[in-house]
Protein backbone atom coordinates (compact mmCIF):
# COMPACT_ATOMS: atom_id res chain seq x y z
CA UNK A 1 0.00 0.00 0.00
CA UNK A 2 1.24 3.50 -0.86
CA UNK A 3 1.92 6.27 1.63
CA UNK A 4 -1.01 8.00 3.28
CA UNK A 5 -2.03 11.21 1.54
CA UNK A 6 -4.24 12.08 4.52
CA UNK A 7 -3.68 11.26 8.17
CA UNK A 8 -6.57 12.35 10.33
CA UNK A 9 -5.79 12.51 14.04
CA UNK A 10 -8.34 13.20 16.77
CA UNK A 11 -10.35 15.27 14.35
CA UNK A 12 -13.42 16.88 15.81
CA UNK A 13 -15.94 19.26 14.31
CA UNK A 14 -18.67 20.84 16.38
CA UNK A 15 -21.50 23.12 15.39
CA UNK A 16 -22.89 25.01 18.35
CA UNK A 17 -21.47 22.37 20.71
CA UNK A 18 -23.06 19.55 18.71
CA UNK A 19 -20.37 17.07 17.69
CA UNK A 20 -20.74 16.27 14.00
CA UNK A 21 -17.39 14.62 13.31
CA UNK A 22 -15.24 12.88 15.90
CA UNK A 23 -12.63 10.74 14.16
CA UNK A 24 -9.83 9.35 16.30
CA UNK A 25 -7.70 8.12 13.45
CA UNK A 26 -8.10 7.61 9.74
CA UNK A 27 -5.63 7.18 6.93
CA UNK A 28 -6.37 7.60 3.26
CA UNK A 29 -3.72 6.36 0.87
CA UNK A 30 -2.43 8.10 -2.24
CA UNK A 31 -3.99 6.72 -5.40
CA UNK A 32 -6.72 4.66 -3.76
CA UNK A 33 -10.48 4.80 -3.98
CA UNK A 34 -11.78 4.89 -0.45
CA UNK A 35 -15.50 4.79 0.24
CA UNK A 36 -17.16 6.13 3.35
CA UNK A 37 -20.59 4.67 3.94
CA UNK A 38 -23.09 5.40 6.63
CA UNK A 39 -26.59 6.64 7.22
CA UNK A 40 -27.70 10.22 6.59
CA UNK A 41 -26.46 12.57 9.29
CA UNK A 42 -23.47 10.39 10.16
CA UNK A 43 -21.04 13.25 9.45
CA UNK A 44 -19.77 11.94 6.09
CA UNK A 45 -20.27 15.19 4.18
CA UNK A 46 -18.70 17.24 6.99
CA UNK A 47 -15.69 14.93 6.91
CA UNK A 48 -15.36 15.58 3.16
CA UNK A 49 -15.57 19.35 3.70
CA UNK A 50 -12.80 19.04 6.29
CA UNK A 51 -10.68 17.01 3.86
CA UNK A 52 -11.29 19.71 1.22
CA UNK A 53 -10.18 22.39 3.76
CA UNK A 54 -13.57 24.06 3.42
CA UNK A 55 -14.13 23.82 7.17
CA UNK A 56 -11.81 24.35 10.08
CA UNK A 57 -11.64 21.54 12.64
CA UNK A 58 -12.76 22.38 16.17
CA UNK A 59 -9.97 20.14 17.51
CA UNK A 60 -7.40 17.82 16.06
CA UNK A 61 -5.57 17.96 12.82
CA UNK A 62 -5.34 16.79 9.27
CA UNK A 63 -1.93 15.80 7.98
CA UNK A 64 -1.96 16.17 4.21
CA UNK A 65 1.05 14.86 2.29
CA UNK A 66 3.08 14.80 5.52
CA UNK A 67 2.27 18.41 6.33
CA UNK A 68 0.22 19.29 9.37
CA UNK A 69 -2.45 21.66 8.20
CA UNK A 70 -3.87 23.99 10.75
CA UNK A 71 -4.82 27.62 10.47
CA UNK A 72 -4.18 29.12 7.06
CA UNK A 73 -4.10 26.61 4.21
CA UNK A 74 -1.98 27.79 1.25
CA UNK A 75 -4.00 28.22 -1.94
CA UNK A 76 -1.62 25.86 -3.79
CA UNK A 77 -2.56 23.11 -1.32
CA UNK A 78 -6.28 23.88 -1.48
CA UNK A 79 -6.14 23.67 -5.27
CA UNK A 80 -4.92 20.06 -5.16
CA UNK A 81 -8.26 18.89 -3.76
CA UNK A 82 -11.78 19.36 -5.07
CA UNK A 83 -15.26 18.06 -4.38
CA UNK A 84 -18.18 17.01 -6.54
CA UNK A 85 -21.22 17.61 -4.38
CA UNK A 86 -24.50 15.70 -4.35
CA UNK A 87 -26.34 18.66 -5.86
CA UNK A 88 -24.36 20.16 -8.73
CA UNK A 89 -24.19 23.95 -8.49
CA UNK A 90 -23.43 25.28 -11.93
CA UNK A 91 -22.71 28.82 -12.99
CA UNK A 92 -25.19 30.77 -15.09
CA UNK A 93 -23.16 30.07 -18.23
CA UNK A 94 -22.68 27.49 -20.96
CA UNK A 95 -21.40 23.95 -20.41
CA UNK A 96 -17.92 24.75 -21.74
CA UNK A 97 -17.54 27.85 -19.55
CA UNK A 98 -18.62 25.84 -16.52
CA UNK A 99 -16.13 23.07 -17.23
CA UNK A 100 -13.33 25.60 -17.83
CA UNK A 101 -14.12 27.56 -14.66
CA UNK A 102 -11.42 26.03 -12.45
CA UNK A 103 -8.75 26.62 -15.12
CA UNK A 104 -9.74 30.30 -15.21
CA UNK A 105 -9.29 30.51 -11.45
CA UNK A 106 -5.73 29.29 -11.92
CA UNK A 107 -5.06 31.77 -14.71
CA UNK A 108 -4.98 28.97 -17.29
CA UNK A 109 -6.56 29.05 -20.73
CA UNK A 110 -9.57 26.92 -21.63
CA UNK A 111 -7.75 24.80 -24.19
CA UNK A 112 -8.23 21.36 -25.74
CA UNK A 113 -8.34 19.72 -22.30
CA UNK A 114 -11.79 21.20 -21.76
CA UNK A 115 -13.19 19.69 -24.94
CA UNK A 116 -11.51 16.36 -24.19
CA UNK A 117 -13.14 16.17 -20.77
CA UNK A 118 -16.52 17.24 -22.15
CA UNK A 119 -16.26 14.39 -24.66
CA UNK A 120 -15.18 12.01 -21.89
CA UNK A 121 -18.38 12.71 -19.95
CA UNK A 122 -20.41 12.34 -23.16
CA UNK A 123 -21.62 15.92 -23.46
CA UNK A 124 -19.92 17.09 -26.66
CA UNK A 125 -23.30 17.72 -28.31
CA UNK A 126 -24.14 20.11 -25.48
CA UNK A 127 -20.80 21.94 -25.33
CA UNK A 128 -22.35 25.36 -25.89
CA UNK A 129 -25.75 24.68 -24.29
CA UNK A 130 -26.84 26.65 -21.25
CA UNK A 131 -25.86 24.65 -18.16
CA UNK A 132 -29.14 25.48 -16.45
CA UNK A 133 -31.18 23.75 -19.17
CA UNK A 134 -29.56 20.35 -18.64
CA UNK A 135 -31.08 17.34 -16.93
CA UNK A 136 -29.93 16.35 -13.43
CA UNK A 137 -27.63 13.65 -14.78
CA UNK A 138 -26.10 15.95 -17.38
CA UNK A 139 -25.55 18.64 -14.75
CA UNK A 140 -23.72 16.18 -12.53
CA UNK A 141 -21.56 15.13 -15.49
CA UNK A 142 -20.68 18.81 -16.06
CA UNK A 143 -19.79 19.09 -12.36
CA UNK A 144 -17.58 16.01 -12.64
CA UNK A 145 -15.90 17.32 -15.81
CA UNK A 146 -15.31 20.67 -14.09
CA UNK A 147 -13.57 18.87 -11.24
CA UNK A 148 -11.50 16.59 -13.51
CA UNK A 149 -10.22 19.30 -15.85
CA UNK A 150 -8.15 20.85 -13.06
CA UNK A 151 -6.41 17.48 -12.59
CA UNK A 152 -6.82 17.30 -8.82
CA UNK A 153 -4.56 15.15 -6.72
CA UNK A 154 -7.57 14.25 -4.59
CA UNK A 155 -11.16 14.04 -5.82
CA UNK A 156 -13.85 14.01 -3.15
CA UNK A 157 -17.25 12.73 -4.19
CA UNK A 158 -20.20 13.52 -1.96
CA UNK A 159 -23.08 11.22 -2.95
CA UNK A 160 -22.39 12.06 -6.60
CA UNK A 161 -25.01 9.75 -8.06
CA UNK A 162 -27.84 10.07 -5.55
CA UNK A 163 -31.11 10.67 -7.43
CA UNK A 164 -29.61 9.79 -10.82
CA UNK A 165 -30.86 7.18 -13.27
CA UNK A 166 -28.90 3.93 -13.75
CA UNK A 167 -27.41 5.11 -17.06
CA UNK A 168 -25.87 8.21 -15.47
CA UNK A 169 -24.80 6.24 -12.40
CA UNK A 170 -22.95 3.73 -14.60
CA UNK A 171 -21.36 6.49 -16.68
CA UNK A 172 -20.13 8.46 -13.67
CA UNK A 173 -18.80 5.35 -11.94
CA UNK A 174 -16.86 4.42 -15.08
CA UNK A 175 -15.33 7.91 -15.37
CA UNK A 176 -14.32 7.83 -11.70
CA UNK A 177 -12.74 4.40 -12.09
CA UNK A 178 -10.87 5.53 -15.21
CA UNK A 179 -9.64 8.71 -13.53
CA UNK A 180 -8.22 6.67 -10.67
CA UNK A 181 -6.70 4.05 -12.94
CA UNK A 182 -5.21 6.33 -15.60
CA UNK A 183 -4.15 9.32 -13.50
CA UNK A 184 -3.74 7.82 -10.07
CA UNK A 185 -6.12 10.36 -8.56
CA UNK A 186 -6.95 9.63 -4.92
CA UNK A 187 -10.70 9.36 -4.62
CA UNK A 188 -12.79 9.55 -1.47
CA UNK A 189 -16.37 8.58 -2.14
CA UNK A 190 -19.10 9.30 0.36
CA UNK A 191 -22.23 7.30 -0.25
CA UNK A 192 -25.08 5.66 1.58
CA UNK A 193 -25.29 3.18 -1.27
CA UNK A 194 -23.35 0.11 -0.12
CA UNK A 195 -23.56 -1.47 -3.57
CA UNK A 196 -21.81 1.52 -5.11
CA UNK A 197 -19.11 1.39 -2.44
CA UNK A 198 -18.67 -2.31 -3.20
CA UNK A 199 -18.44 -1.68 -6.96
CA UNK A 200 -15.94 1.17 -6.80
CA UNK A 201 -13.78 1.01 -3.71
CA UNK A 202 -11.22 -1.57 -2.58
CA UNK A 203 -11.39 -0.08 0.93
CA UNK A 204 -14.46 1.03 2.83
CA UNK A 205 -15.19 2.73 6.15
CA UNK A 206 -18.41 3.06 8.11
CA UNK A 207 -19.32 6.32 9.81
CA UNK A 208 -21.94 6.52 12.50
CA UNK A 209 -22.77 9.52 14.67
CA UNK A 210 -19.63 11.31 13.54
CA UNK A 211 -17.29 8.41 14.37
CA UNK A 212 -15.48 6.01 12.09
CA UNK A 213 -16.68 2.64 13.34
CA UNK A 214 -14.74 0.32 11.10
CA UNK A 215 -12.39 0.48 8.12
CA UNK A 216 -11.41 -2.52 6.08
CA UNK A 217 -10.89 -3.92 2.65
CA UNK A 218 -14.15 -4.28 0.79
CA UNK A 219 -14.45 -8.03 0.96
CA UNK A 220 -13.76 -8.22 4.68
CA UNK A 221 -15.95 -5.16 5.35
CA UNK A 222 -18.98 -6.65 3.65
CA UNK A 223 -18.47 -10.38 4.21
CA UNK A 224 -16.90 -10.54 7.67
CA UNK A 225 -17.24 -7.21 9.46
CA UNK A 226 -15.66 -6.97 12.91
CA UNK A 227 -18.18 -4.59 14.41
CA UNK A 228 -21.80 -5.64 14.89
CA UNK A 229 -22.93 -2.16 13.81
CA UNK A 230 -21.11 -2.61 10.49
CA UNK A 231 -22.76 -6.00 10.11
CA UNK A 232 -26.16 -4.46 10.77
CA UNK A 233 -25.52 -1.63 8.32
CA UNK A 234 -24.36 -3.81 5.44
CA UNK A 235 -27.30 -6.16 5.99
CA UNK A 236 -29.62 -3.16 5.86
CA UNK A 237 -30.85 -3.88 9.36
CA UNK A 238 -29.65 -0.72 11.02
CA UNK A 239 -32.45 1.44 12.31
CA UNK A 240 -31.60 5.15 12.32
Amino acid sequence: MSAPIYRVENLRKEYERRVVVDVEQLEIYAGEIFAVVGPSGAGKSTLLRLLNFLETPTYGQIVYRDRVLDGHIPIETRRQVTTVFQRPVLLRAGVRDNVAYGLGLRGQRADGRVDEIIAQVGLQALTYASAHKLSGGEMQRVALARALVIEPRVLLLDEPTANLDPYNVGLIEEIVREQNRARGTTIVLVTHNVFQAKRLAPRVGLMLNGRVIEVGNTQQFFDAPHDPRTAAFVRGEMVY
Partner: protein
Amino acid sequence: MDELTRGFFQAIQLIFSADPALYEIIFLSLRVTGLALLVSTAIGVPVGAALGLSNIRARGFITALLYTGMGLPPVVVGLFVYLMLSRSGPFGVFGWLFTPSAMIVAQIIIAFPLVSGLTMAAVQGVDPALRLQVRSLGATRAQEVWAVLREARLGVIAAIVAAFGGIISEVGAVMLVGGNIEGKTRVLTTAIVLNTRTGEFSLAIALGVILLALAFLANVAMLRLQGKS
Protein backbone atom coordinates in the same frame (compact mmCIF):
# COMPACT_ATOMS: atom_id res chain seq x y z
CA MET B 1 -57.83 63.98 -25.41
CA ASP B 2 -57.15 66.69 -28.05
CA GLU B 3 -54.58 68.14 -25.72
CA LEU B 4 -52.84 64.76 -25.50
CA THR B 5 -52.81 64.25 -29.27
CA ARG B 6 -51.59 67.77 -29.84
CA GLY B 7 -48.91 67.25 -27.21
CA PHE B 8 -47.76 64.04 -28.86
CA PHE B 9 -47.41 65.64 -32.29
CA GLN B 10 -45.75 68.67 -30.77
CA ALA B 11 -43.23 66.33 -29.13
CA ILE B 12 -42.31 64.90 -32.52
CA GLN B 13 -42.04 68.41 -33.97
CA LEU B 14 -39.94 69.51 -30.99
CA ILE B 15 -37.52 66.62 -31.31
CA PHE B 16 -36.87 67.42 -34.95
CA SER B 17 -36.93 71.20 -34.48
CA ALA B 18 -33.32 71.26 -33.30
CA ASP B 19 -34.39 73.76 -30.64
CA PRO B 20 -31.18 74.37 -28.66
CA ALA B 21 -33.11 75.15 -25.46
CA LEU B 22 -34.84 71.76 -25.62
CA TYR B 23 -31.62 69.87 -26.27
CA GLU B 24 -29.99 71.71 -23.40
CA ILE B 25 -32.78 70.50 -21.09
CA ILE B 26 -32.47 66.93 -22.39
CA PHE B 27 -28.68 66.87 -22.09
CA LEU B 28 -28.75 68.35 -18.60
CA SER B 29 -31.33 65.74 -17.52
CA LEU B 30 -29.13 62.97 -18.88
CA ARG B 31 -25.94 64.45 -17.43
CA VAL B 32 -27.38 64.90 -13.93
CA THR B 33 -29.08 61.49 -13.85
CA GLY B 34 -26.17 59.75 -15.58
CA LEU B 35 -23.56 61.05 -13.16
CA ALA B 36 -25.77 60.39 -10.13
CA LEU B 37 -26.36 56.85 -11.37
CA LEU B 38 -22.66 56.32 -12.01
CA VAL B 39 -21.67 57.42 -8.51
CA SER B 40 -24.47 55.54 -6.75
CA THR B 41 -23.61 52.39 -8.74
CA ALA B 42 -19.90 52.73 -7.98
CA ILE B 43 -20.65 52.96 -4.26
CA GLY B 44 -23.93 51.06 -4.02
CA VAL B 45 -22.93 47.82 -5.77
CA PRO B 46 -19.88 47.12 -3.55
CA VAL B 47 -21.81 48.12 -0.42
CA GLY B 48 -24.78 45.92 -1.38
CA ALA B 49 -22.47 43.02 -2.24
CA ALA B 50 -20.57 43.37 1.03
CA LEU B 51 -23.81 43.40 3.00
CA GLY B 52 -25.19 40.45 1.07
CA LEU B 53 -22.07 38.39 1.65
CA SER B 54 -21.30 39.31 5.24
CA ASN B 55 -22.77 38.03 8.46
CA ILE B 56 -22.19 41.14 10.54
CA ARG B 57 -24.49 41.58 13.49
CA ALA B 58 -25.68 45.02 12.40
CA ARG B 59 -26.83 43.75 9.00
CA GLY B 60 -30.48 43.67 10.03
CA PHE B 61 -30.36 47.28 11.18
CA ILE B 62 -28.47 48.43 8.06
CA THR B 63 -30.95 46.54 5.85
CA ALA B 64 -33.86 48.27 7.58
CA LEU B 65 -32.15 51.62 6.99
CA LEU B 66 -31.55 50.85 3.32
CA TYR B 67 -35.11 49.66 2.74
CA THR B 68 -36.39 52.83 4.41
CA GLY B 69 -34.07 54.79 2.14
CA MET B 70 -35.61 53.08 -0.89
CA GLY B 71 -38.88 54.78 -0.05
CA LEU B 72 -37.43 58.22 0.74
CA PRO B 73 -39.67 60.99 -0.62
CA PRO B 74 -37.49 62.96 -3.10
CA VAL B 75 -38.81 66.24 -1.75
CA VAL B 76 -37.52 65.35 1.73
CA VAL B 77 -34.13 64.52 0.23
CA GLY B 78 -34.27 67.86 -1.60
CA LEU B 79 -35.01 69.68 1.65
CA PHE B 80 -32.13 67.91 3.42
CA VAL B 81 -29.64 68.66 0.62
CA TYR B 82 -30.94 72.24 0.45
CA LEU B 83 -30.24 72.75 4.16
CA MET B 84 -26.81 71.13 3.88
CA LEU B 85 -25.78 73.24 0.88
CA SER B 86 -27.42 76.52 1.80
CA ARG B 87 -25.07 79.32 2.68
CA SER B 88 -25.56 78.75 6.42
CA GLY B 89 -25.36 74.94 6.06
CA PRO B 90 -22.27 72.79 6.75
CA PHE B 91 -21.43 72.45 3.05
CA GLY B 92 -22.44 75.98 2.04
CA VAL B 93 -18.83 76.86 1.25
CA PHE B 94 -18.97 74.75 -1.91
CA GLY B 95 -21.53 77.12 -3.41
CA TRP B 96 -23.35 74.21 -5.04
CA LEU B 97 -26.93 75.24 -4.29
CA PHE B 98 -28.93 75.98 -7.47
CA THR B 99 -26.29 74.25 -9.61
CA PRO B 100 -26.33 70.84 -11.34
CA SER B 101 -23.87 69.60 -8.66
CA ALA B 102 -26.56 69.98 -5.99
CA MET B 103 -29.02 68.11 -8.21
CA ILE B 104 -26.51 65.28 -8.66
CA VAL B 105 -25.93 65.04 -4.90
CA ALA B 106 -29.69 64.85 -4.25
CA GLN B 107 -30.14 62.15 -6.90
CA ILE B 108 -27.23 60.12 -5.53
CA ILE B 109 -28.96 60.10 -2.13
CA ILE B 110 -32.17 58.87 -3.76
CA ALA B 111 -30.47 56.26 -5.97
CA PHE B 112 -27.93 54.84 -3.49
CA PRO B 113 -30.40 52.91 -1.27
CA LEU B 114 -32.09 51.48 -4.37
CA VAL B 115 -28.82 50.27 -5.91
CA SER B 116 -27.31 48.92 -2.68
CA GLY B 117 -30.54 47.46 -1.26
CA LEU B 118 -31.50 45.64 -4.45
CA THR B 119 -27.89 44.50 -5.04
CA MET B 120 -27.85 43.08 -1.52
CA ALA B 121 -31.10 41.21 -2.20
CA ALA B 122 -29.70 39.88 -5.51
CA VAL B 123 -26.50 38.67 -3.83
CA GLN B 124 -28.47 37.02 -1.02
CA GLY B 125 -30.58 35.29 -3.68
CA VAL B 126 -27.56 33.45 -5.09
CA ASP B 127 -27.47 29.79 -4.07
CA PRO B 128 -25.30 29.67 -0.90
CA ALA B 129 -23.86 26.36 -2.10
CA LEU B 130 -22.20 28.22 -4.97
CA ARG B 131 -19.64 29.80 -2.64
CA LEU B 132 -18.68 26.42 -1.23
CA GLN B 133 -18.49 24.97 -4.74
CA VAL B 134 -16.21 27.67 -6.17
CA ARG B 135 -14.01 27.56 -3.07
CA SER B 136 -13.73 23.81 -3.55
CA LEU B 137 -12.63 24.46 -7.14
CA GLY B 138 -9.79 26.61 -5.84
CA ALA B 139 -11.23 30.12 -5.76
CA THR B 140 -9.52 32.72 -3.62
CA ARG B 141 -11.73 34.93 -1.44
CA ALA B 142 -11.79 37.65 -4.14
CA GLN B 143 -12.62 35.11 -6.87
CA GLU B 144 -15.41 33.75 -4.69
CA VAL B 145 -16.96 37.21 -4.28
CA TRP B 146 -16.63 37.87 -8.00
CA ALA B 147 -18.36 34.54 -8.79
CA VAL B 148 -21.29 35.46 -6.55
CA LEU B 149 -21.56 38.92 -8.12
CA ARG B 150 -21.50 37.42 -11.61
CA GLU B 151 -24.31 35.06 -10.64
CA ALA B 152 -26.29 37.98 -9.21
CA ARG B 153 -25.71 40.17 -12.26
CA LEU B 154 -29.32 40.07 -13.48
CA GLY B 155 -30.46 41.40 -10.12
CA VAL B 156 -27.67 43.99 -10.05
CA ILE B 157 -28.72 45.29 -13.48
CA ALA B 158 -32.33 45.40 -12.28
CA ALA B 159 -31.15 47.47 -9.30
CA ILE B 160 -29.46 49.98 -11.61
CA VAL B 161 -32.53 50.10 -13.88
CA ALA B 162 -34.78 50.75 -10.86
CA ALA B 163 -32.49 53.52 -9.63
CA PHE B 164 -32.39 55.12 -13.08
CA GLY B 165 -36.19 55.07 -13.27
CA GLY B 166 -36.37 56.53 -9.79
CA ILE B 167 -34.14 59.53 -10.43
CA ILE B 168 -34.82 60.42 -14.07
CA SER B 169 -38.48 60.90 -13.20
CA GLU B 170 -38.17 62.63 -9.82
CA VAL B 171 -38.96 66.31 -9.58
CA GLY B 172 -39.16 67.28 -5.91
CA ALA B 173 -35.46 67.16 -5.09
CA VAL B 174 -34.10 68.70 -8.31
CA MET B 175 -36.71 71.46 -8.13
CA LEU B 176 -35.71 72.38 -4.56
CA VAL B 177 -31.94 72.25 -4.90
CA GLY B 178 -31.67 73.20 -8.57
CA GLY B 179 -34.24 75.94 -8.63
CA ASN B 180 -35.36 75.25 -12.23
CA ILE B 181 -33.23 78.08 -13.60
CA GLU B 182 -33.51 78.38 -17.37
CA GLY B 183 -30.32 77.48 -19.15
CA LYS B 184 -28.69 76.39 -15.91
CA THR B 185 -30.63 73.85 -13.85
CA ARG B 186 -33.80 73.23 -15.86
CA VAL B 187 -34.34 69.53 -16.53
CA LEU B 188 -37.21 67.68 -18.18
CA THR B 189 -39.24 67.11 -15.01
CA THR B 190 -38.94 70.67 -13.73
CA ALA B 191 -39.72 72.02 -17.21
CA ILE B 192 -42.89 69.90 -17.25
CA VAL B 193 -43.96 71.35 -13.90
CA LEU B 194 -43.31 74.91 -15.10
CA ASN B 195 -45.20 74.48 -18.38
CA THR B 196 -48.15 72.85 -16.63
CA ARG B 197 -48.33 75.76 -14.18
CA THR B 198 -48.25 78.32 -16.98
CA GLY B 199 -50.95 76.50 -18.97
CA GLU B 200 -48.59 75.33 -21.74
CA PHE B 201 -50.11 71.85 -21.63
CA SER B 202 -49.06 70.80 -25.10
CA LEU B 203 -45.45 71.64 -24.38
CA ALA B 204 -45.67 69.89 -20.99
CA ILE B 205 -47.07 66.77 -22.67
CA ALA B 206 -44.40 66.97 -25.34
CA LEU B 207 -41.67 67.09 -22.70
CA GLY B 208 -43.40 64.22 -20.88
CA VAL B 209 -43.33 62.12 -24.04
CA ILE B 210 -39.62 62.86 -24.50
CA LEU B 211 -38.95 61.92 -20.85
CA LEU B 212 -40.85 58.67 -21.27
CA ALA B 213 -39.03 57.91 -24.51
CA LEU B 214 -35.65 58.49 -22.84
CA ALA B 215 -36.58 56.27 -19.89
CA PHE B 216 -37.84 53.63 -22.31
CA LEU B 217 -34.66 53.69 -24.40
CA ALA B 218 -32.42 53.51 -21.32
CA ASN B 219 -34.42 50.57 -20.00
CA VAL B 220 -34.31 48.78 -23.35
CA ALA B 221 -30.52 49.23 -23.41
CA MET B 222 -30.16 47.82 -19.90
CA LEU B 223 -32.56 44.96 -20.59
CA ARG B 224 -30.53 44.06 -23.68
CA LEU B 225 -27.49 43.95 -21.42
CA GLN B 226 -29.47 41.74 -19.04
CA GLY B 227 -30.52 39.52 -21.94
CA LYS B 228 -26.90 39.09 -23.02
CA SER B 229 -26.09 38.00 -19.49
